[in-house]
């Protein structure tokens, strides 16, 4: 028999091994939930499957009695819009500043210390300031995401721009390129796939800041809903919402990865 370190799972085995922990967790949950509901039918901590499906039915597929809208849909759209705007603006700032500081030494000397300093400020600590300056509206929530992830994106992209081999920058000059052309034809196209992977890395923090901002001041949104129903210990709503957020995060990550592989084959082929 081969050493353990050399043994690989086959295609079927890999799926089975991957699913196994999920199945175990689900079974454990059902057993624990049954036991608690047996002892106290009104227990709220570990709801049964039927109360989950009731809650999902109510939140996702029936118009809300108060507003006539589908709650889950409204929450999802509101959150995705904030996340999308926040991440898009951060990516744009990260791209522009990262390319400038990564490829132009004079910019780097001027801007890098500021960015480094800003990246050390804990974003949640200045959330109150944001609410004071921008009010409780959409802007403050988007700003929190931007402030939270932009310094990381700038620094990551600056590093990626600096990693472009000097040989290629020299090569461009021997082909007659000026500084602007070196940026538009060499640095920018090579940074784009790296931007996508930095954005994928920063999405976790972006969700964190979004949910934190929504928990404090919002009238709809996935984070708002979770913190709202927490008051009634409504685990039957909270857990499906968490699962839904997880699924959204996974789907966005997967889509970005696939897009990058399709759009930048040279980047993924050379790795």
């Amino acid at each position, binding site marked *: 028999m081969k050493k353990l370190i050399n043994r690989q799972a086959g295609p079927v085995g890999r799926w089975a091994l991957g699913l196994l922990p999920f199945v175990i967790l689900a079974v454990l949950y059902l057993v624990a939930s049954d036991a608690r509901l047996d002892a106290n039918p009104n227990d709220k901590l570990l709801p049964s499957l039927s109360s989950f499906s009731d809650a999902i039915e109510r939140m996702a597929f029936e118009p809300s009695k108060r507003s006539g809208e589908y709650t889950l849909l409204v929450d999802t759209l509101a959150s995705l819009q904030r996340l999308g705007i926040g991440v898009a603006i951060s990516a744009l700032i990260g791209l522009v500043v990262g390319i400038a500081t990564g490829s132009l030494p004079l910019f780097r000397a001027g801007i890098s210390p500021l960015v480094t300093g800003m990246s050390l400020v804990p974003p949640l600590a200045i959330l109150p300031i944001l609410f004071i300056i921008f009010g409780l509206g959409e802007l403050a929530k988007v700003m929190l995401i931007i402030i939270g992830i932009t310094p990381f994106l700038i620094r990551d992209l600056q590093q990626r721009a600096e990693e472009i*081999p000097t*040989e*290629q920058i*020299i*090569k*461009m*000059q*021997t*082909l*007659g*390129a*000026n500084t*602007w*052309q070196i940026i*538009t*034809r*060499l640095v920018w*196209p*090579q940074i784009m796939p790296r931007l996508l992977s930095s954005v994928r890395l920063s999405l976790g923090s972006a969700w964190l800041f979004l949910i934190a901002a929504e928990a404090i001041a919002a009238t709809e949104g996935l984070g708002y809903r979770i913190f709202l129903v927490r008051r009634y210990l409504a685990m039957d709503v909270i857990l499906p919402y968490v699962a839904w957020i997880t699924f959204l995060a996974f789907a966005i990550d997967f889509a970005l990865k696939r897009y990058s592989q399709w759009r*930048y*084959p*040279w*980047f993924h*082929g*050379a790795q």
Partner: protein
Amino acid sequence: MAAIEIKNLWKEYGQDVVLERLNASVEEGEFVTVVGASGCGKTTFLKMMLGTESPTRGQLLLDGKPIPDEPDETRGIVFQRYSVLPHLTAVENVMLAGELESSRWLGRVFGGKRRALREQAEEMLASVGLDHALGKYPHELSGGMQQRLALAQALIKKPRILLLDEPFGALDPGIRRDMHELVLDLWRKQDLTVFMITHDLAEGFFLGTRMWVFDKERLDPQTPGSYGARITYDLPVGNSDKGTLQSITQSVDSTARVLGA
């Protein structure tokens, strides 16, 4: 007047003397092969020609004026690696120089102009034997094909001076010989001045018009940095005998041992 004049050229990094008292002049259209022990300063010399390093003493003149201290289109280069742009296909890599020239802002051209550039690029790629790989990205090409692509990319710009830093060092000897044929062929057609560094002494003996050996005349085994390398042999290619090759080989080998220790 010679195109390139080297007058009492020194290059030092702090205490370490890399090159000292280089003197030579090179005519337009010469093909100079540079050989020497590893670490004796061949690349450093090429970098001064390119303008990314500057001499610490002496002068390096192009047409009587100091050579520009940043890379530009008069001097093309092929490095040992990373010479082609990984995000462009073979034909795009070769079209790049033309695009950069016709569009100062966008660096891209469209329509009829683009078709013309593409045709030229395809012709150039055919002359280096890459006509079957037009749409491939560099990572899909072998090492030899990548270097041929780099040659095509550099030559389509028609530089006055072509600098080659062991461009074929990583290739099999057989392929390397083919590549040398290719370089010589392109050089004859395009009327350039070529400086080519190679590791293989015997190779330098049969390539181009002139061979320079970089070597340390004085060698201090304790502190090899205290004296720099000079051009110890400046030979016309084609009429040197076996004895010379042997004595050069011995001298370069002993320098290599000290520098490598």
